[in-house]
Structure formats: C-alpha cells, structure tokens
C-alpha cells in the first residue's frame, strides 16, 4: 500500500478542474487553485522560512494552528472558468493563466504584473500550454465557445481555429510521432479532434462530451467523458475504457508504480482516486478522499529532486504521492492479489462446469431425437432444453423507413430466423446512437415471432458498427442460443431517392474532382442505404443523383460530369459532411470549392447584425453599471460617516438609497447576463458558420478559409466574409 507522502489541509474550497502548479518565482513550485468569489489562492510551501523573520513581532498575535500562513490570494473579480501555468518567452518564471467567461489573464505572480489581459468573447473553458508545429515560441491555448486561440507572450493570438462545438478539453501531444506536438481537442459534440498546426488531421467520435484529455507516453492519451467513461487511446485505437456512475473530474498521466510507463491517474467526483495501467486499464492503486477530487498535478513539492503526484480535493485537502520503488511496485493495492486470483479462477471453473453440464445434456437430448424418431415427449423435452436445428440461420437487413404518423423516419434493422425458431430478445451495442451504448428489445411473451424489427435513429451521419446479440430458441424454451453478429450501418443512412417532381435547391457547392465517375458511384453505393443501386447515366459521362434527407426533409441533388461535382442542397452541414466523406474516401488532400448558400449567408448576416447590437448594448450597460457602483461606494462611505457622527437619520437615508440603487444594479446585472448569453449564442453561430464554410473545402484551402473568415470578422468586413465563404480564402 502506497501511503501519501504528505497531507495538507488548506481549509479552502477548491473549484474542480481549476487547479494548477507553476514555478512562479522560477524556482519553487506553488499550487494555484481557484476558490469561491472569483479568487485564486496560491500555496507556497517554502515561504515559511522567509515569513518567520518578518513575522517575529507578530508571532504572538497569530495562533498558527488555525491559519495556513503560506496562502495568499489573488483577486480576479470574475467567475474563474479555467486555470493554467507555464513559461512564455525566455524567462524561466512560470506565468499564471486565468480564464473567465469573458477574459483571459496572463499574470506574473512574482512581480505582481500582468503579461497581458485579453478579452475573449468566446469564453475560456480550458487552458493548455506548450509548443506546436509552425510556431517556435511556446503558446498558451484557450479553448472556448467553438474556437481555440493560442496566445504568445505579448498577448498576440498566433493561433486561431474553429471547432464544431464548445471546447471542453485540450491536450498537447505528439500524435503522429513526427516530433512536433499536435493539439488534441475534446468538445461538447462528442468529438476528439486532432490539429496539426491549424489543420485537422484526425477525428474520433465518442459517446459524450469529452471533459478531460491527458497526454501520456508517446502518442497515447487518456480521455474522460461526461458520462463517467475513462479510457486511453493510442492514436485512434482505443486500448481500453471503463465506465463508472461517478464522473471523472481530472485525469493525469504519472508513473506511480515506477515501471517506466505512465499510468492514467483518475480523480472522481466521489472522492476516489485511482491509477490504471495505460495498457489494459488494470487498477494498480486506489485511494479515497472525503470529498470530490478537484485536480491532479505533479511537481517537486518537497524540493527533494523528484516530482510528486499532487492531488487536491474540493475541500482543500492536498495529498502528495511519490512513485513506488521497483520492488514494492507489485503491492500498491491494498488487498492481496493472490486471493483475488484464486477467487477469479474458481469463478471461472464454476462457469465452465455449468457450460459443460449444458452441453452434455444437449447432446443427450440430441441423441434421443436422432435415435428414437420424433415423439411428443422428447420434442417437448428438446424444446425445453432449447435445442434448435443445426442449420438455423439469422438473416438481417437494413431498411430505410420514411416518416409515418407514429414514428419519425428511421432505419429499420430486420432480423429473422430461417425456420420456425423464434427470437426472444435482441441486444444491440453501438456507440452514439442509443442512450447509453446498448439497446435491448424483447417483445412481450405473446408477441414473440421469428422476425423482429428494431428501429434505429442515427442522430448524425457517421458509420456505426452494430454488434447484435440475438437470443434464439423455441417458443417456450427456457434456454436460448445466442447468435452474435455485427453489421455496419453506412455513413449516410436516412436518405431516399427524391420523388421525381422535386425542385432543385438554389444553394450549391461545386468542386473539381479528377476521378472516374465509377468510383464516385461506388462510394455512393457503399455509403448510402438506398433501395436500388445507383449507376451512372450514359456510360461514365454523367451522374445525376436526386436524394431526399429524411431527417430534415430537404432534397439533395448530386450532379457529376467528368472533372466536377456539384451538390445542390440547402443544408450546409450536410453538404459539408458529404464533401468531407467523399474527399476522405477518394484520398483528396487539398481541394477548394465554390459555394453559394444564399439562405445561410442571409442568416449569418442577421446574426452579425445582432452581434453588433449586443456589443453596443453591452457597452452602454457597462457604463451604467460602473456609474452605479461609484455611487454605491460613495453611499457606503456616507452612511459610515453618518454612523460615526451618530447621525442616524442620514445614515438611514443613505442605506435606503443604497438599497434602491442595489436593486437597480441587480436588475441591470440580470439584463447584462441575458445580453451576454444571447451574445454568446450568436458568436457560437458565427463560429460554427465559419466551421461550416471550412468544411466545404479540404486540406490547405480549408484552413485558409477559416483564417480569412476570422480576419474578415476582426475587421468587421461583412461583405468580404461572404465573398470568402463563397469563393474560398485565397
């Protein structure tokens, strides 16, 4: 059992995920945590010796038991949403980064001065620090509302890009082992995206918002989801994952058992702390806090030359662990491993015995059936034992069903057996389409037949692997055979051929493709779930495909002549999806396109006008509030003055005024809040708009579009923005 090296009680609330450590004076690591009321406290374990000198005269006044003297507070004055620390520039001192919903502050703690203080209208949800490709200075990354910014020492944003949704987590690691870091971004739309510089090189879909990411050895990284899942990826292969009913608050990579390979340390909302092997997820160490874990960091907190694992709980308890020695590494766990092993083996033995018994009885029954011809009794017996004919097969098929009154349109998975056996139940495992990850269908006892259909509602256009387990048996047997099979749902499922009289949509995107039409046709047949195979008109010279998206009800016209593809559709998201999928399968690296989406642009225009309005209103409200707060201060002083002079009447008057003013201020604040949240929503739409425009291109043109759009918005040049969306960035 590994005992903590040290335990500190800081007696301060710590906000979860807002814990960091940094060498703010260039030498000693200090813990910095966000606490209530927009404050940050910094714990300096080494200040004791310096403090005691200046405090000699005071030492009698302070009873040191009640106070933690090494804490000091920074007043940020805003709700803190993210914290970080790291070196920017040549200085060896670490800089403290504090993010709030509106601002980003880089603060030099040692010198009590700002490095920079920037407005971030997109908010700061998470902060990461380090080097990335194409930039030779360290940057600090702030992930906000659909956007990621990377700031250099002078507050200049050297890096900026958009993602599909709110960014929840960031990590820097060498994903493709090319010796430069990639930026890994987890967001609220369940995606983990990997950016090399500002180009997206990989995308992994998960099943919930990705709340934490942690870089591990090599190209491995740990992740945690909002539903309590924790796991490890190596590039895009998942090594393992586990799910808990608690939420992982913080994950961290640290070699706790001293074997040279980092373990994934997870701090849970229940106060549990565990270390799991990065390879198979086996628990190597466990500990418990009295309250939820707030954050995990590492640092040389005892100045003995090694880095300890430091874990903080929300109640301000701090524990430090140092890695175990090689020889003790096997028994980090509390309980005896041998006993565990014996228990596990005996369990397995029991299971095997049970299985064996089943088999032997089955063969016995089978013999009877074979030997004695069919008789009523044995038949019943056979059914009871759950024997089914050896040639029983399961057939599955996928079918698109259009909207009916009772059901929205969906994909139907039909399962039926080839003979009289019935399907008792079906279990489907698939990520991302069900609540949770599995779905069980078991018809009522009187409704059991040999065929079963399961409606599936894919929320997004992604290929999904369905792992289906079917319980097959006779009507009244108590034991069933399990048929396992997997079936892939193609990427674009909810689409059917459009009715012949459909109007061609006005919006379109067109791009050059140097591929034979046949390949595109093949791709369409693989990726769409259409009733009949598509084929090119007039032998390889033209392709005309008219589809209808069932989810939104808007038509899609795909037209290809050699060299160019044109897609007509009002839904820019969908077009982006198709373009990306098509480009990926045809191995197109760089592709620019021309786009024309009048409705989308119209909407964007409206939103931009609104953003401007919100900005103006906000400015007015801010000025008003500042005015009020000045008045409030003067009233407080006046009231106090009146109190000192024993003039109770004017004191009362002052406080009455104060009360009224305060009420006004609170009202004003509410208005401001509403205004801000609406502004945020609008900005999100704008960012997503840029992202959508980017998705109509591939590779370099895509990043060009994103950067150009950003610049146009910065300059407030709306016309230019639309031009870029239409024609690309160059």
């Amino acid at each position, binding site marked *: 059992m590994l005992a903590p090296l040290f335990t500190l009680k800081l007696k301060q609330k710590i906000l979860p995920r807002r814990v960091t450590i940094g060498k703010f004076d260039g030498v000693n690591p200090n813990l910095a945590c966000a606490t209530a009321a927009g404050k940050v406290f910094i714990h300096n374990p080494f200040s004791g010796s310096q403090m005691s000198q200046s405090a000699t005269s005071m030492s009698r006044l302070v009873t040191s038991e009640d106070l933690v003297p090494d804490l000091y507070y*920074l*007043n*940020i004055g805003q709700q803190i949403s993210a914290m970080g620390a790291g070196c920017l520039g040549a200085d060896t001192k670490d800089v403290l980064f504090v993010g709030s919903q509106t601002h980003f502050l880089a603060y030099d703690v040692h010198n*009590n001065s700002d490095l920079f203080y920037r407005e971030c209208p997109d908010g700061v949800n998470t902060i990461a620090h380090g080097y990335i490709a194409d930039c030779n200075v360290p940057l600090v990354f702030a992930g906000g509302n659909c956007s990621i910014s990377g700031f250099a020492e002078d507050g200049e944003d050297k890096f900026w890009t958009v993602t599909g949704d709110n960014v929840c987590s960031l990590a820097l690691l060498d994903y493709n082992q090319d010796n430069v870091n990639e930026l890994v971004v987890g967001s609220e739309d369940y995606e983990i995206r990997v950016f090399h510089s500002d180009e997206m090189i990989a995308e992994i879909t998960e099943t919930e918002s990705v709340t934490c990411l942690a870089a591990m050895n090599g190209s491995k990284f740990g992740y945690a989801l909002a539903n309590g899942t924790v796991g490890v990826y190596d590039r895009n292969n998942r090594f393992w994952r586990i799910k808990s009913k608690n939420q992982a608050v913080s994950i961290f990579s640290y070699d706790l058992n001293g074997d040279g390979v980092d373990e994934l340390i997870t701090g849970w909302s229940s106060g549990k702390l565990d270390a799991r092997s990065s390879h198979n997820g086996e628990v190597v160490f466990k500990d418990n806090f009295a309250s939820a874990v707030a954050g995990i960091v590492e640092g040389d907190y005892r100045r003995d030359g090694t880095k300890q694992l430091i874990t903080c709980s929300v109640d301000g308890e701090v524990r430090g662990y140092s890695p175990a020695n090689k020889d003790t590494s096997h028994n980090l766990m509390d309980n005896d491993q041998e006993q565990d092993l014996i228990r596990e083996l005996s369990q397995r033995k029991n299971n095997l015995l049970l299985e064996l018994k089943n088999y032997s009885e089955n063969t016995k029954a089978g013999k009877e059936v074979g030997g004695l011809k069919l008789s009523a009794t044995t038949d019943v017996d056979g059914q009871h034992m759950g024997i089914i004919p050896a040639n029983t097969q399961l057939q599955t098929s996928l079918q698109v069903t259009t909207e009916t009154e009772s059901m929205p349109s969906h994909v139907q998975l039909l399962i039926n057996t080839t003979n009289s056996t019935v399907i008792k139940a079906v279990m489907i495992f698939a990520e991302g389409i069900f609540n949770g990850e599995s779905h069980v269908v078991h018809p009522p006892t009187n409704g059991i037949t040999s065929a079963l259909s399961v409606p599936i509602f894919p929320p997004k256009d992604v290929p999904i692997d369905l792992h289906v387990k079917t319980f097959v048996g006779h009507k009244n047997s108590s034991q069933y055979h399990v048929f396992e099979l997997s079936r892939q749902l193609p990427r674009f499922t909810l689409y059917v051929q459009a009715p012949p009289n459909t109007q061609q949509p006005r919006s379109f995107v067109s791009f050059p493709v140097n591929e034979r039409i046949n390949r595109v046709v093949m791709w369409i047949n693989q990726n769409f779930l259409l009733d009949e195979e598509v084929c090119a008109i007039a032998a390889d010279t033209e392709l005309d495909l008219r589809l209808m998206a069932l989810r939104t009800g808007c038509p899609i016209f795909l037209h290809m002549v050699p060299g160019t593809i044109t897609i007509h559709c009002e839904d820019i998201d969908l077009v982006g999806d198709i373009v990306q999928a098509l480009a990926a399968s045809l191995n197109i690296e760089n592709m620019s396109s021309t786009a024309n989406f009048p409705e989308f642009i119209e909407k964007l225009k409206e939103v931009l006008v609104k953003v401007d309005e919100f900005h103006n209103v906000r400015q007015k409200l801010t*000025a008003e509030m500042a*005015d009020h707060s000045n008045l409030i201060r*003067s009233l407080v*002083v006046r009231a106090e003055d009146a109190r000192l002079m024993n003039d109770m009447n004017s004191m009362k008057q002052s406080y009455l005024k104060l009360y009224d003013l305060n009420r006004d201020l609170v009202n004003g604040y509410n208005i401001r809040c509403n205004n801000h949240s609406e502004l945020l929503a609008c900005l999100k739409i704008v960012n997503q708009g840029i992202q959508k425009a980017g998705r109509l291109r591939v590779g370099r043109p895509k990043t060009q579009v994103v950067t150009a759009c950003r610049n146009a918005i910065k*300059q407030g040049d709306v016309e230019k923005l639309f031009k870029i969306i239409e024609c690309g960035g160059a």
Partner: protein
Amino acid sequence: MALVEKQLDPLFLARSYLRRRKFDSCVEICSKMLEKNPYDQCAWFMKAKALTEQVYVDEVEADTDGIAEMLMDDNSIAQVARPGTSFKKPGTSGQGTSTSQGIRPMSQSGRPVSGFVRPSTQSGRPGTMEQAIKTPRTAHTARPVTSASGRFVRLGTASMLSEPDGPFINPSQLNLAKYADRPGLNKVLFDYLFYHENDIKNSLELAALATQSSKYEDWWWKQQLGKCYYRLGLYRDAEKQFQSALKQQPTVDNYLYLAKVFVKLDQPLAALDLFEKGMEVFPGEVSLIIGSARVHEGLGDLDSSVKFYKKVFQYDASSVEAIACIGTHNFYSDMPEIALRSFRRLLQMGVVNTELYNNIGLCCFYAQQYDMSLTCFERAINLANKENVADVWYNIGHIAVGLGDSNLAYQAFQMALISDNNHAEAYNNLAVLEMRKGKVEQARAYFLSAITINQELYEAHYNLAILSEGQGDLNTSFKEVRKSLEAFAEHVDSKNLLAQLRQYFTLL
C-alpha cells in the same frame, strides 16, 4: 481698438480671440453668430472649443483617490503582494536606509515625505473605514468620498452655470450617432462633453460610435474611450483601449495614461516596464522619466527614484518637481548644504512660497547658518496662510529645541497648535517638553491626544510607553510599544524596550 474690431469679420475676430485665449469674448461673438444662423458649424465649433478650454485640466495629472476607492478596492489582483511589487506595501524589503522612518518622516498617510505635492501622493491606504473617514476631518488632506464625486464634480460645475438662453449643447437631446460620423465636429463635441459637461456616459457613447465609424483605425478615439473608461473606474477596459491605441500610434500621452491604469491596478512593476518601453520610443521625454521616478518613490525605493530625477536634469534643468525631490532627498541624507542649493535654485526660478522658505530655513539651520535660518522662517510666516502656518511654527519649535531654547520651543509649539489643533507632531513634542519639566500627567494627556489624532505616529506611542514604564504602568507601556512597532517595525529603541518589558513579565 473697438473700431478695428467692428470692422473685422466676426468669424475672423472670434478665431483671433480663441487663439489669444480670450475665451469669453470668443464665446460672445460665436453666440451672436449662432443666433443668426444656428447651423453655422464654424461658430459652433469655436464656441464649443472656447467653452472647453476655459475649464480644461490636463487629464494625466488630474487624479484623486477617493475614500471609497481606497477601501473598496477590487482592482488590484494580489491582495498581499511580495514586498516591493505593490503600492500597498512599499519598501518593506528594506532597500537602502534612506526610507527608514527614523530618518525620513512619514506623511500623514504613512508614506515617506516627498519633495513635491502631486495628485495621489496622498494615497496611503488606511486600515479601516473609520480611520479613513476621520483622517480628512482632522488633517488637511481632504479626500473626497469617491473620485467621481470629488474634484471632477468641481471641474464639471461649468455646466451648471446658468446660461442666458439655456445650455449651449444639451447632451440628452443630441443624436450622437449623427455627430460621430462627422470627423470635423465629433472631436470637439467629445471634448466639450468630457471636460465641460463632465458627462462621461454620453462621451463614452460618442467615442464608441466614432471609433466604429472610423473603422477602428483612429488611435485618438481609442485613447478617449480609454479616458472615459478610466473615469468610470473600468480600468481593465481602459487598459484595453490604451493598449490598442498604443499599438497604432505610440504617443507620450498614451504611455502616461496606461501607466496610470497600472498604478490603479496596483501593478507598479508593469508601470515601470511601460515607462521603460516609452523611453525607448521617446528618449529624453521628461514626463515619462518623472513618471518612472514617481512610481519608484511610491514603492519606497528612493535611491532609484533620485536616479531618475537626476536623469530629468539632463533634459530639463528647470523641472521643479525634480529639483524639489532631489533637494528633499539630499536634506534627509544629511547633506543640508547641497539641499540648500536645490532650494535656492527653485527660488531663483520664481517659486516663492511658505514651504520653500520653510525648507530653506531648515537647511540653513542644519548647515549651521543660524542667522539665515530665522530670517527664512520669518519670511515663511509672512507668506503663510491658515493651512500651513502651523507647520512653520512647528519647525521653529523644532529649531528652538535644537538650540536648547525650550521656552521658545514651548511657545512655538503652542502657536502651532493654535493655528491647527490637530497637529499631532506638535502635541508629541510639547508633551516631551512637559515631560522634561516633570509634569507627567500633562505630558500623558498630550501624548494621548497626539495618538488619537494620528495612529501612525510611532514616536508618540514610544514616548508614551517610556513614560508609562517610568511610572511603573507596565501594561500600558507594553501595549504602546507594540503599537509603535506596528507603525515602524525596525525601531530599535522600541524593540529594546519591548525586550526589557518581556523580561520584567517573565520575572513576574
């Protein structure tokens, strides 16, 4: 003359008046022109300009910390910063002995006395609100309740003067968006609103609109936005605007404004850094060097401060502030003759006031030119007004003590108290004289009144402690010596007394 003026075109005449700073006449002519043609932009422009110039005060220097700002300060980030990095806790790092209270006295607000009175040198931070409210009543460091209600209200009273036909411009009826688009008129309108009307909210709106209409490319408007935010106490927003303006066009003003913001945010090192950068762009710009010196002085690092003041001399040999500060520094570094030179230079430059004669008198005394000394004090008294005569009398008493003429000293201190019965130092010295005479109870009473007036006066605490100890009242003595050490932690005599008292207590 009048004939010539009648012959001149009124527009030209108004322009001439404006240039010659005869604002009243200019306003009069412009008003007449506007009566004839209310849409005469030229007349409107000049009238606004003239009215603004009448009340214009340089924004860089106009600054007062109100009580409320000081006590309810939520702008500074670090609450307990490392010594030497914050104005709140200046110079506890003990760089150089020149900052020691034993050598250089503290001002009423617990800060080393500077040679120059300037805005916000009074900004020591009292501990409690009660203390903060009491101090301005007792001493002559009247401090407004808030900065918004203080000097700026007085500056803005120009707008409250009744004008014969209503106010010239009524901000609430203006269509600011319309004016913002007119580059010729918007700046003068802004100045009028900001300086004359003191209407910060509307100025801000106008500045914001004008910035937009100039496509965020006019640094002047950004600077004005920053000024508005600064007045409203939104220092972070002000910082953003000044930074942005600075990026576009470095100007001296901008550096000074931004440094002011950093001072407000209690980040002196950031301010120093900024001055440094500014001096690279504008080498030899005196206001930047002086700014840097002020910040150093605020941090209690007087040696560096003096270094910067000396640098000022290279560029501007007649900077009053630099001369005064260097003189004060020399005086407190035991070089009264050299200090005398500085003060004499001030006198040559035409600065004639009580304080200067008072300082020269003191210098003369310490430089052993006794004949000059008393003459100087005589002049100082002749020039003095109600507010500073007490200090002169106090200094005369001080010299009398030095000369051993305790009768004169006694009378001088009494005179000081007659003109200002809140002069804590005079009470203290009077008490010491009483103590020498053996009137212990009288002395105690004087000490107590000194203490009630100024809590920070460590001498009074220490003296009372000594007195009580002599009488055997060890408890009071212990309490007082502790307070003395609170005000001045390095005071050796207090420490010795404390050690002695501790020993007594352990013996008991």
